[in-house]
């Protein structure tokens, strides 16, 4: 017989290893791990733009992601580190919300807490989810809202009738206010809506409530015009002076509405689907993928269906949804999943990974159902799985969160002379400089200008206003970088380019590597002797932050690392050409020390 104290301890222990303790362990661990690994710097891609919008009002690139950017504005009152850290904090909250929603969705589709918990662990600690949940990106909020729809549409969802229809409408509207890919959730959304309407005593009213709720969910788009008109806006992509501009932005007309980006690679659909499949296997440590396949086959084919098993018809709708958000959508992407573009594309894998995790839970349910596991065993399984998954993914998350892009921008901004104009391309530079200059107020005297953005009238006019220069209009598809360079140099401003993005500059002007940039000299000038260029670069590199260990090829940090390698490689060539072999060898050594390393394992196959 237990004494009073022993009985109390026993009860506490029983509660701890019970279903509630299981959830506490699960979501507590996710909170601790996400909180401890928040990215606090500008990373590549769009992260810099969203980090900027955590520092003040503005409008992000099309379609504007008004729900996410509105929530970013809430982060002003979180007194921690930088706007980038605050944006990551918000995203981590969304990541935790998505984990809770996935748990509820798995339960609503017939899984028990242990199987749902295992699926949540595999999902939450997958390198992709973890990285996107702890850096400023919109994809986790999208996954959270979409998996909420799956939870509400689930056969065992506690929400019935009009409430189910209304909630699905509201979630659909909010999801579309965040990311357009939510439209691919239509099959399961409509299924849930029809079920809700049929459950309701007043079907027409239920439909009306759903439509009204969907419209309410779309209202955040009204924010775009309001933010664009703010005199304190830090960054506004697009022209909102007319209503037409708002429609243009919402429909992503700048990118070609149904295309992923401006760049249009010719990619075979099967290559995209293959890359998605490999990524999903890798992300779920294979075991999740096997459970996913097992769960799907079991749900569709099982003859002896247990009481909580979802009806086959419902499963078919969920499978169709998964096909839409996964292979079907991915096969339409116009960016090749190779090199750093793979980092852009793989963000779109998060939604299929999330929806597929419901099947992962049901696959594990099929196995666990045969075993009658005690509570303490269930608790131990989950604890061990969390530790294992976190340990396996940590290195990839660390690599993703490398501060190299942010440090690159800092290095450039501290080294350029007053009133310099920097011409550059690529998102990580555009948004990196935007964050440091607009959100942090660094080097207001320096102007960063992206020639590829000069196709947009609003950007060209804004740059002309800021620089006080007459900038050339685009001629058809091309923008004359030579004319821009002439305008800058004739105004007496020092000109730099981040990379050689057009042959016009080196053909018409003398250039030489100046640290992470090229210095462009006025027409008729000669570049300095290589020895002088070497001295200048050595001095600059002495003041630069340099990576502690080499970046990986195919990552944003790997892309940035090329800029550190470039001056030394060019100096080596220049010294070789004039017969200074020793100097050339020294420069080659410096280049090699900074060179990114090949990606490990599977990823190498994708980035080759």
């Amino acid at each position: 017989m237990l004494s009073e104290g022993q009985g109390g301890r026993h009860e506490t222990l029983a509660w701890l290893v019970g279903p509630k303790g299981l959830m506490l362990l699960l979501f507590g661990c996710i909170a601790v791990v996400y909180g401890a690994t928040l990215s606090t710097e500008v990373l590549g891609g769009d992260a810099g733009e969203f980090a900027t919008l955590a520092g003040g009002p503005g409008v992000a690139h099309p379609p504007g992601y008004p729900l996410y950017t509105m929530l970013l504005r809430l982060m002003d009152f979180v007194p921690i580190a930088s706007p980038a850290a605050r944006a990551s904090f918000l995203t981590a909250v969304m990541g935790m919300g998505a984990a809770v929603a996935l748990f509820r969705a798995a339960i609503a589709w017939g899984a028990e807490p242990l199987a749902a918990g295992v699926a949540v662990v595999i999902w939450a600690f997958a390198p992709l989810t973890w990285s996107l949940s702890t850096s400023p990106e919109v994809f986790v909020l999208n996954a959270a809202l979409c998996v909420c729809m799956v939870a509400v549409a689930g056969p065992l969802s506690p929400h019935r009738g009009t409430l189910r229809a209304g909630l699905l409408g509201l979630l659909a509207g909010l999801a579309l206010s965040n990311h357009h890919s939510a439209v691919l959730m239509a099959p399961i959304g409509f299924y849930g809506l029809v079920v809700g309407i049929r459950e309701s005593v007043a079907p027409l009213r239920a439909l009306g409530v759903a439509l009204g709720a969907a419209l309410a969910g779309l209202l955040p788009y009204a924010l775009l015009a309001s933010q664009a008109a703010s005199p304190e806006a830090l960054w506004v992509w697009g022209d909102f002076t007319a209503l037409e501009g708002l429609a243009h932005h919402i429909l992503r007309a700048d990118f070609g509405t149904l295309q992923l980006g401006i760049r249009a690679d010719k990619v075979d659909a099967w290559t995209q689907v293959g890359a998605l499949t490999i990524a999903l296997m890798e992300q779920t440590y294979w075991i999740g993928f096997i459970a996913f396949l097992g769960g799907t086959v079991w749900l569709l084919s099982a003859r002896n269906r247990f009481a909580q098993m979802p009806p086959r018809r419902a499963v078919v709708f969920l499978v169709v949804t998964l096909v839409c958000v996964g292979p079907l959508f991915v096969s339409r992407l116009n960016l090749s999943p190779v090199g750093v573009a793979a980092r852009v594309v793989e963000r779109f894998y998060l939604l299929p990974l999330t929806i597929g995790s419901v099947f992962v839970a049901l696959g594990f349910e099929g196995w666990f159902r045969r075993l009658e596991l005690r509570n303490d065993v269930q608790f131990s399984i989950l604890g061990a799985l969390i530790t294992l998954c976190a340990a396996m993914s940590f290195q990839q998350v660390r690599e993703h969160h490398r501060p190299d892009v942010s440090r690159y921008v800092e290095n450039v901004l501290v080294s350029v002379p007053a009133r310099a104009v920097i011409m550059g391309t690529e998102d990580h530079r555009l948004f990196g400089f935007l964050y440091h200059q607009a959100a942090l107020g660094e080097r207001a005297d320096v102007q960063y200008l992206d020639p590829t953005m000069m196709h947009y009238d609003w950007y060209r006019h804004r740059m002309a206003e800021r620089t006080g220069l007459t900038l050339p209009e685009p001629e058809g598809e091309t923008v004359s970088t030579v004319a821009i360079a002439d305008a800058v140099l004739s105004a007496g401003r020092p000109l730099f380019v981040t990379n050689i993005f057009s042959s016009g500059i080196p053909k018409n002007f003398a250039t030489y590597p100046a640290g992470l940039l090229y210095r462009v000299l006025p027409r008729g000038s000669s570049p300095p002797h290589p020895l002088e260029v070497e001295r200048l670069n050595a001095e600059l590199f002495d003041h630069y932050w340099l990576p502690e260990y080499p970046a990986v090829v195919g990552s944003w940090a790997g892309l940035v690392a090329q800029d550190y390698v470039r001056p030394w490689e060019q100096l080596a060539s220049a010294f070789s050409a004039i017969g200074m072999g020793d100097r050339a060898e020294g420069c080659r050594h410096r280049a090699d020390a900074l060179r990114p390393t090949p990606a490990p394992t599977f990823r190498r196959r994708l980035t080759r």
Partner: protein
Amino acid sequence: MVEPRDERPWGPGKIARGLGLVALLLVGLFAVAAGRAAVSCRRELHAAEGFFAAGDLASAVLSARHAAEWYVPLDSCSEAGLSLLDEVAAKADATGQGDLALVALRSARTSIMLTRGLYTPHAERLPRLHAEIAARMAAERRLSGKAKPDDQARYLAQLDGYEARRPNPWLALAGSLGFVGWLGAVAGFAWFGLRADGSFVWQRAWGWAGTALVLFCLWLTLVRFA
């Protein structure tokens, strides 16, 4: 077909418990993030002090700047990073490295700008930093032979202007809370304004719909002027 249920899946008690759990998780997440900031700040500061003692001023600037960026309320570590940047600037001046001193001062300013939220931590340092940076930038222009008489005033206006152009964080916060309130009111409308059979509880429905409309307008208006 599943029979509609009259009762709500979540009663007020369960909603309150759910909100409490969310608040607890948010506080937990913030506590972990704040703890990490405090630890990272000390690590960077320790490294910066080591570099400073060894005379490697360029590395000291980078580490001290990163220490200053890890601001958490009630933790003095970030301020120690700013003070170290001042010391580095002074030592750089004394050793004839004016350009490095400028980098140190700019780093201190950036660290302060970076940590702004509802209030600006260490804002009292900004006027002196702005004045020194503007003076040094004007001197740099003089050395290049392209100076204009109003250079220093222009640079100072640029630096000060940034702070003056700052959005009003309190209005932004009020507007943002209007947004969250709007979302809550829409959910409240669905939860309390509707019966399970789809019919309206008119009095409650009007109340929640009106609240949602007011909060929506408040959100748009405040964020516009924030």
